[in-house]
């Protein structure tokens, strides 16, 4: 017989099984016919207090590689900066830009060496290399998955709901960006750990481009217009 999940600090616990909702964030990325969309929220919460609403959760590793931040902000920023140093060294030694697969493997191997030491990182490494678009999920327990669509963080389940029902491979750039924006909006609506604003990036063969910062409160009234009094 299993125990009913009881609330514990940062999540739920049932016997030995612990579900941790500590990664107060929503980050998502997906490939489509013309590129890759990366869409993240910007809230940093310390318990019930919103410590910041203007966090940059997309880390620019180099002009062709992006990394997203979920989990410990310091851990993500620091280790992705180490990753950019390693990517630059690779380029100097090999006279060729590093592939997304190799960059994500470098990070995954570093994180595996620190496994059990309490690092908290759930990141997506996104980029474009000679094999085409690359999207990898890498986390602190050493997992590394390649895929077409990922969402990470406490709001990820809500983002998946919108992404899974509306995603198509054949989309225009505008449709894909709107899907990214919409998925983050819905996650910020339902998840208390996510919110404030949405940062959108688009990755193409010539590198990433920052599309814009959208306040989710404004998005709410855009998607749910109030009739004029």
């Amino acid at each position: 017989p299993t125990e009913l999940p009881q609330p514990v600090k940062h999540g739920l616990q049932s016997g030995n099984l612990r579900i941790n909702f500590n990664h107060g964030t929503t980050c998502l990325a997906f490939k489509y016919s013309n590129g890759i969309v990366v869409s993240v929220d910007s809230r940093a919460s310390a318990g019930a207090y919103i410590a910041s609403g203007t966090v940059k959760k997309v880390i620019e590793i180099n002009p062709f590689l992006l990394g997203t931040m979920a989990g410990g902000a310091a851990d993500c920023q620091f280790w992705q900066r180490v990753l950019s140093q390693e990517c630059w060294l690779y380029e100097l030694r090999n006279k060729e830009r590093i592939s997304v697969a190799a960059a994500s493997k470098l990070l995954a191997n570093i994180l595996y060496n620190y496994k059990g030491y309490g690092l908290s990182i759930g990141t997506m490494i996104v980029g474009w290399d000679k094999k085409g678009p690359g999207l990898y999920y890498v986390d602190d327990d050493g997992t590394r998955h390649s895929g077409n669509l990922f969402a990470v963080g406490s709001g990820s389940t809500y983002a998946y709901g919108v992404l899974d029902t509306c995603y198509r491979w054949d989309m225009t750039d505008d449709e894909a960006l709107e899907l990214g924006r919409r998925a983050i909006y819905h996650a910020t609506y339902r998840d208390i750990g996510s919110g404030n604003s949405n940062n959108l990036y688009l990755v193409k063969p010539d590198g990433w481009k920052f599309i814009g910062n959208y306040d989710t409160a404004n998005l709410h009234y855009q998607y749910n217009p109030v009739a004029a009094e």
Partner: protein
Amino acid sequence: MECLIGIQFNDYVLLAADCNGGRSIISMKDDVDKMFRLSERLAIIVSGESGDTNKFAEFIEQNVQLYKIRHGYELSPYAAANFTRRNQAQSLRSRSPYFVNMLLAGYDANKGQPELYYLDYLGSLMKLPFSVIGYGGYMSLSVLDRHYRPDMAEADGIRLLRTVISEIQKRLVISLSKFRVHRVDRNGVTQLDDIESKLVTP
């Protein structure tokens, strides 16, 4: 949560592993291949702690390849299984043990027969006719005990595997909708059609 199935027949071994990859209650990927090719006629399927599984499997894969480069011939399945078991036994009482369970399937060209080995994170090693790792075993080992015969041809073997998987899908509370299947025989390691149940579409 993960389920690994291995069944050894007279001429071939079938290996099936579920395709789920995720974190706690979320399934992030539904087409994970948990099979690692150690050499032309040797394959393993792994489950356990995420991160450890990949690392340990790649470590064994690289060492098997190194043996071939150094000595000019390949490790037999029996030797490879014992090498892997020794590594797990040594890791068990080390500072940070690997938590990996696996099924190793190989075709021994000298003996002319296929072999299946069960290896777990405690350093156990058993040569078995069939084995299931994970909660799925509670549902399916009796099906195998009842219906398994070593002389089944491939079509019957696949049908037995499908019966096993359908019982797991029926009785296990966790959804394991897709299994990736490989066959190991004298011709090497071949991927067969995935066994999956159709999900509800909107």
